[in-house]
């Protein structure tokens, strides 16, 4: 475990405790980082063939989940829930605060052909991104996530295990929070709306 990660964990545990005490209303297993962490540089492509880098995360909130298109159960379920989360957020925050939803596809060879279709079935604005394995792993690291590809069986089939949490990245391109399943739409939207409001208050305070 790196020093950076253990520091992250300590901060995360403390903030989780504080978050739990102050937001007992929302039944969300979420963690807000005390000090948001810049994600390291990476270069991927989005499902339209355009470059997608750490800079692409700037200027808006983002919800990022790792997954793969040969995942028939959990990944679609999470994407369907995030679609509902964004719909619920639309009732609570201004349109410029609505987060982009980004599906980080970690199995590029199998993911590329169907990535766009897979992702936009849940919402036309959802964006699938993928790339070279080492770039994917770099991106995952920045979101405090992992992906482990199993060894192929005799038929060449393999599965991919990946982090279940959704990473919340702020408009400065920093990892601001993580949300663990289940992603119940109402409480998750409330958790995010509260995070956005706090951030806005903090920024207003800074500028005074």
């Amino acid at each position: 475990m790196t020093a950076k990660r253990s520091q992250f964990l300590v901060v995360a545990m403390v903030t989780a405790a504080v978050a739990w005490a102050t937001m007992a209303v929302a039944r969300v297993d979420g963690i807000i980082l005390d000090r948001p962490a810049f994600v390291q540089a990476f270069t991927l492509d989005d499902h339209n063939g355009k470059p997608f880098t750490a800079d692409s995360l700037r200027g808006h909130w983002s919800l990022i989940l790792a997954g793969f298109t040969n995942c028939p159960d959990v990944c679609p379920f999470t994407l369907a829930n995030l679609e509902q989360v964004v719909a619920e957020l639309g009732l609570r925050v201004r349109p410029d605060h609505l987060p982009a939803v980004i599906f980080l596809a970690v199995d590029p060879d199998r993911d590329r052909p169907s990535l766009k279709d897979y992702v936009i079935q849940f919402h036309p604005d959802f964006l699938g991104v993928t790339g070279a394995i080492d770039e994917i792993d770099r991106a995952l690291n920045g979101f405090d996530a992992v992906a482990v590809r199993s060894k192929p069986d005799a038929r060449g089939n393999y599965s991919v295990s990946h982090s279940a949490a959704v990473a919340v990245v702020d408009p400065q391109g920093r990892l601001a929070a993580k949300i663990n399943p289940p992603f119940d739409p109402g409480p998750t939207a409330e958790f995010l709306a509260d995070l956005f409001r706090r951030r806005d208050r903090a920024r207003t305070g800074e500028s005074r």
Partner: protein
Amino acid sequence: MIRVVRRFLVIGGMVVGAAFCAAQLSAAERVSVENAWVPWAPPTVAVHAAYMTIVNRSNEDQSIVSAESPDYQRVELHASSVKNGVNEMRDLAQVAIPANNRVAFEPGGLHLMLIGPKQVVADRVRIVLRLQSGEQVEVSAVVRRRDAGSHAGHDHHGAYQ
């Protein structure tokens, strides 16, 4: 004469009725499937899921050892789970359906993985479940959009290996 025939018919009917009741329930009556559905997916997506509740009305434990579908290349029994914050999917050799019990295949837990659709999936998907006894249960799963909601949780009634 008529009275004799009638008596013969009554006795005969009773014998046939008793025999009918004593006979075992058919495979379809012992093990049945409720609310089978397949989340709609775009034609290019190579792997789909099927969810359902499997009901065992018999006094004997049953077990599903495999599944197939004329609409897909292959069907596997799978379980999703979260371990240490990581989503995993396991291939199951069988799924036990205990006597007089029901087992739910639902998002985030047990599911059938439907691999390689042979044509564009339309209204229904045909699936055949094979039991350890050698019998089979035919399922017609409705294709529909997903509803958002909670994960299934991790309380799958039946044990499975």
